[in-house]
């Protein structure tokens, strides 16, 4: 433990240099601003802002990223409270309860409890990362390729089949992502795969093109197509002061802590998903509240708890990402690919090889969280202005930046056509209720799973049974199979 604290202190030494403080500030500021814009979530923000980071060194780039990551979470809650937009599933609960509070003239209190709760949860989550990283790394060092492969299978099943409304549609998205990830030259054998005679495709598809296509182009098409049926959302004015009464405080602090306690461990599991902790937190708070009748009409506990759970799970996701190299959300998958483009492989060895980078990143998460708290509440008027950007200009701007962020950077006509084709696929997926995150995760994790499978087979000289005879690997695979067929069997039994 003392060792951890010592390294964290060194991390602060890295993060507190004026240049890195500036990157952290730019990250949280841009992150909040982009996160406030309706229709732009953390995954798209990071994908669009990736080109900015290629011009700076790795440590600065990841400090910038982590600022953006936490910033978009704060910005997103402002949007769901003031403008009830059903977008990201993790903020649905906040939108439900927080928007009701805002409608009854309590927008200020809702924003305050969300921001302070995010700060509390973000800090607890970051403390969790600090002390969990080392043990997870020590565990991971015992992992061989077989265990990694099995762990990835478990993550595949949970992100696509368990979370979300349908296992079949989730697995379809995952398979599509795996296919996209296979495009290009196979690094081990040098053979081109799925290049369809197009030279540009032999280098593989950039994950930015896929992420921006799905989340920017696809989402814009989806929103345009449902304009007729959707009722126009109106931004609610903040009329009360942005602070909380004594009663608000006493009703908020326990939900913050309970939400953090739920969110962080669930986020840190190799299963991922921020929906489960936010919904769990909502139902627990409803049970424990002295005023359960207020739920659904704007109960402050229903904002405080789920917001904390959401932020703590976002912090938790960074544990498997940094310590195992296992991304369990679309945002983490895009961050992983950014690491790769710097020639850095997240995983147990990263902590030993690049301690300054990892601990600098963790330290800047603490700093970014403080900045966000200070930045968010006083600047609320600015964020409300961003919310009021008229739809036509907002989506025009999103598509323009989507174009320059992909075609502009690579100067590849193929990328532009791909961007729009994947955007159209994303539109169909949204319409027919297919989840989009498994596409990104499959695309990034698929090649890693193949690599580990090959290494495992090389070690075992082609004997598949190692996957089932090594106890850790067998356990992980058993969990994956249980997660895949368990719910189906359960349903069949209940029906009887």
């Amino acid at each position: 433990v003392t060792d951890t604290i010592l390294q964290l202190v060194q991390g602060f030494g890295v993060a507190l240099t004026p240049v890195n403080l500036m990157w952290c500030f730019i990250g949280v500021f841009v992150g909040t601003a982009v996160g406030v814009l309706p229709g732009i979530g953390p995954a798209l923000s990071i994908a669009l802002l990736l080109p900015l980071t290629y011009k700076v060194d790795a440590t600065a780039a990841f400090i910038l990223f982590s600022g953006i990551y936490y910033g978009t979470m704060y910005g997103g809650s402002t949007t769901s409270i003031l403008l009830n937009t059903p977008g990201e599933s993790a903020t649905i609960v906040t939108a439900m309860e927080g928007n009701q509070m805002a409608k009854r003239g309590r927008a200020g209190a809702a924003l305050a409890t969300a921001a302070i709760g995010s700060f509390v949860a973000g800090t607890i989550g970051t403390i969790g990362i600090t002390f969990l990283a080392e043990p997870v790394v020590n565990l991971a060092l015992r992992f061989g390729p077989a265990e990694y492969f099995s762990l990835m299978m478990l993550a595949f099943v949970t992100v696509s089949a368990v979370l979300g409304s349908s296992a079949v549609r989730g697995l379809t998205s995952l398979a599509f992502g795996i296919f996209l990830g296979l495009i290009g030259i196979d690094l081990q054998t040098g053979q081109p795969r799925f290049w369809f005679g197009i030279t540009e495709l032999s280098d593989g598809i950039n994950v930015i093109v896929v992420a921006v296509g799905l989340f920017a182009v696809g989402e814009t098409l989806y929103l345009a197509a449902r304009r007729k049926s959707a009722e126009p959302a109106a931004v609610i004015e903040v009329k009360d002061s942005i602070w909380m009464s004594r009663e608000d405080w006493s009703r908020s602090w326990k939900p913050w802590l309970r939400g953090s306690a739920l969110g962080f461990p669930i986020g840190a599991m190799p299963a991922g998903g921020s929906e489960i902790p936010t919904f769990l937190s909502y139902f627990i708070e409803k049970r424990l509240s002295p005023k359960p009748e207020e739920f659904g009409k704007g109960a402050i506990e229903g904002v405080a708890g789920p917001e904390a759970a959401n932020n703590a799970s976002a912090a938790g996701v960074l544990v498997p990402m940094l310590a195992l190299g296992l991304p369990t959300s679309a945002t983490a998958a895009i961050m992983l690919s950014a690491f790769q483009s710097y020639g850095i492989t997240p995983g147990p060895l990263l902590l030993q090889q690049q301690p300054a980078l990892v601990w600098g990143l963790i330290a800047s998460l603490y700093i970014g969280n403080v900045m966000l708290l200070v930045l968010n509440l006083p600047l609320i008027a600015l964020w409300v202005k961003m919310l009021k950007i008229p739809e036509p200009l907002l989506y025009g701007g999103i598509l323009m930046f989507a174009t320059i962020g992909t075609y502009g950077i690579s100067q590849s006509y193929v990328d532009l056509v791909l961007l729009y084709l994947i955007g159209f696929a994303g539109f169909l997926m949204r319409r027919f209720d297919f989840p989009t995150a498994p596409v990104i995760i499959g695309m990034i994790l698929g090649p890693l799973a193949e690599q580990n499978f090959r290494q495992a087979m090389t070690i075992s000289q082609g004997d598949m049974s190692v996957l089932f005879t090594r106890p850790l690997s067998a356990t992980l695979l058993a969990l994956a199979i249980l997660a895949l067929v368990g719910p189906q069997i359960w349903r069949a039994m209940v029906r009887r």
Partner: protein
Amino acid sequence: MTGEPNRSAIAWQDTLVGLGVLALAAIVAWQTTVIPENAIYARVGPKVFPWLAATMLAVMGAMLTIEGLRGGWEHEESEGTDWHSLGWLLLGLLLNVALISVIGFIAAGTILFVCTARAFASARPLRDAAIGLALGVVAYVGFDRVLGYKIGSGLIERLL
């Protein structure tokens, strides 16, 4: 089989989605067969994972098709589709693909911006064009001149 008694009619759109996934599986399988295999020795060849992806897509496509034939699943229905908005947006994207290498990012981006704004019910194309142009110039200068990405030239880029 008991099935779902409340839904019986075939959901054509959902069935088509299932068939589309099956078609994708067929393309993936066909392209897998043309991957050359024998160049470098590898215990797990370059075709193993592609076959896995093809199989997964085929199984899922079949299940989706069956689900469609049995009445489909819950999702947004097509009656509410705003074809007018969707049309403007698709027009903007098509024009952008067709024109960007001819007239450059800023001019093509401005056209895309105006079409998108139109899709979201803007009635002021001139204002949209002005804002789109300004945004395009800012983005171009930022990426090309400040960050040093080579965005390429075009009608308006030449004047800057």
